[in-house]
């Protein structure tokens, strides 16, 4: 994962509430086999409406999305985070997020920034024609008008984002401990590892 320290640029001043994962990425996109390319399906139903914010050239390629309460509710599908990442979004600012979505966002290098509604309202206004900056070093969201809002993140997750550490990478760094556990397992519960591999007689064909 690429390290994220600041996200700066245009923001979609959307503000819609209770955006569920079905709106972020409709279910029929779930049959794909890659994370890449899901940006094409992101907000498909919103984009079907003429004059929608996502097809407005003023915000094309914006790295930030400003939304309303309870962003990412609905199913646990990780495709929602993949779709946002694929459309180039690196931070979402909202008054609240669904837990599962925010977990998935972190895992995919997207910063879920929680700010109070009045701060979000102010940013929605500024973002119409000005860029916005989310800074993980100072934990602030700032605008060219000297607005400065501070936010909080779980320290562990903040560190992962800033150092580009994905959870797999972090656990791989615990290789010695995992190896030691496996060593003890081989001695104490050898049958766990010793299962039969598949062979023709284990799996007869029709």
């Amino acid at each position, binding site marked *: 994962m690429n390290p994220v320290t600041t996200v700066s640029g245009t923001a979609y001043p959307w503000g819609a509430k209770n955006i569920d994962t079905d709106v972020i990425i409709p279910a029929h996109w*779930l*049959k*794909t*086999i*890659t*994370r890449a390319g899901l940006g094409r399906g992101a907000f498909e139903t919103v984009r079907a409406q003429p004059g929608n914010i996502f097809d407005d050239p003023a915000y094309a390629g914006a790295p930030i999305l400003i939304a309303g309460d309870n962003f990412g509710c609905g199913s*646990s599908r*990780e495709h929602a985070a*993949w779709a946002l990442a694929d459309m180039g979004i690196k931070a979402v600012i909202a008054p609240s997020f669904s837990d599962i979505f925010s977990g*998935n966002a972190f*895992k*995919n290098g997207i910063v879920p920034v929680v700010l109070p509604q009045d701060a979000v309202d102010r940013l929605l206004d500024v973002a119409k024609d000005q860029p916005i900056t989310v800074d993980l070093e100072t934990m602030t969201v700032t605008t060219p008008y000297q607005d400065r809002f501070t936010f909080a993140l779980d320290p562990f997750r903040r560190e992962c984002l800033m150092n580009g550490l*994905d*959870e*797999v*990478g972090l*656990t*791989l760094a*615990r290789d010695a*401990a*995992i190896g030691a*556990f*496996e060593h003890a*397992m081989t001695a104490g*519960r*050898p*049958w*766990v*590892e*010793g*299962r*039969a*591999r*598949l062979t023709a007689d*284990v*799996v*007869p*064909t*029709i």
Partner: protein
Amino acid sequence: MAQRPQTLYEKIWAAHVVERRPDGTCLIYIDRHLVHEVTSPQAFEGLRVAGRSVRRPELTLAVPDHNLPTTPRVDAAGKLLPITDPESAQQLDALRRNTAEFGIDYIDATAAAQGIVHVVGPEQGFTLPGTTLVCGDSHTSAHGALGALAFGIGTSEVEHVLATQTLLLSPSRTMEVRVDGTLGHGVSAKDVVLAIIGRIGAAGGTGHVIEFTGSVIRGLSVEGRLTIANMSIEGGARAGLIAPDETTFAYLKGRPMAPKGADWDRAVAWWRTLPSDPGAVYDKVVTLDAAEIAPNLTWGTSPEDVVPITGVVPDPDSFADPSKREAARKSLAYMGLEPGTAMRDVAIQHVFIGSCTNSRIEDLRAAAAVARDRKVADGVRALVVPGSGLVKRQAEAEGLDRVFVEAGFEWREPGCSMCLAMNPDKVPAGERCASTSNRNFVGRQGPGARTHLLSPAMAAAAAVTGRLSDVRELM
């Protein structure tokens, strides 16, 4: 110093802690990982992009199930038939390629051992007591029937397990669900688990791992226990567990992937130490009396919407909780049901006997016993989808396929099928299905489809009468 009495859950957890963090989360070793075609492609892609390998490929087993059509897979000449939906074909193909690339055992769609991942694991002896087992699928809880700590995970976690054979987890609270007494005539494991979910509610187990105990659970076969543990997730629980005992050991002995020889003896000796100690304390305890459990079924769109077959469609106003009242109103509108209607007066157009809840040999025997010498009612389409190729073979050896076909049921190839309608088996909008699966959510069996969850015998009874029926009257 005497050790504090421990629950089965605590013992398995403790045996798998690689590291404990100051905040209480633990890096937990994963002994067994099952993989299917829908939730794995992006995990393998992630490994590939990062240049990572699979840490312990021999601890993972892959089998396609969700997308596979349940029509014949090879023609009369034994030639492979193509899969018509291009996206399904692509996912199935990706699983084949990914498992070959990363050295993971893969059971092909044409193998007799192929089946629903949660049927295959126990059947092959891949699922073992005291192991941690995960799969990118919520009904992984089923494997808890053999005393494995088993739960569903998301795609990022699938990747994490492939790369590290571990997961970072917080411990769950524990809940004992005890069912004592003797089950009445015509009452099966499915009726028991529906009664449990009806009692605790769809969110009743949230944050907990349920251990099912009591004389009724002890008296069930492994097949019946799998039905119960499978639906733990419908009660909101993270996982369900049943202590391993002689029934479990007898079931596993000699299965292709189960331990053999001296390994087997050592394993059994350890497995015997796993059941919860006398005096072990659970965070929550619920008890049910078997005598009060009737053949059950659901009336609404949540698995907690349970009534006995002798009951009626409830009146939304009868619920004390306003949000439940509102939900019931919506459910009934979707289900096309009027309050006060006797469940036995509700006509059905579809019957689905299958899914990881109820597609094992015992389930098919129970359904066939009702279908024998009867005919599927006019206007009803009834599907029997065995849980695996081996179940299918066994059923055919016992002549069950002929019983079904003569009665007018369709006898299909194994897979998830109409449980989630990801393959071509769907219930059309507005039509009603008596289903042995585990979820009656809006649209689960197809957009607009109406689902009633019930046991295999009850499903067969509905098929032959054309309406929801009390199987006890046909026995």
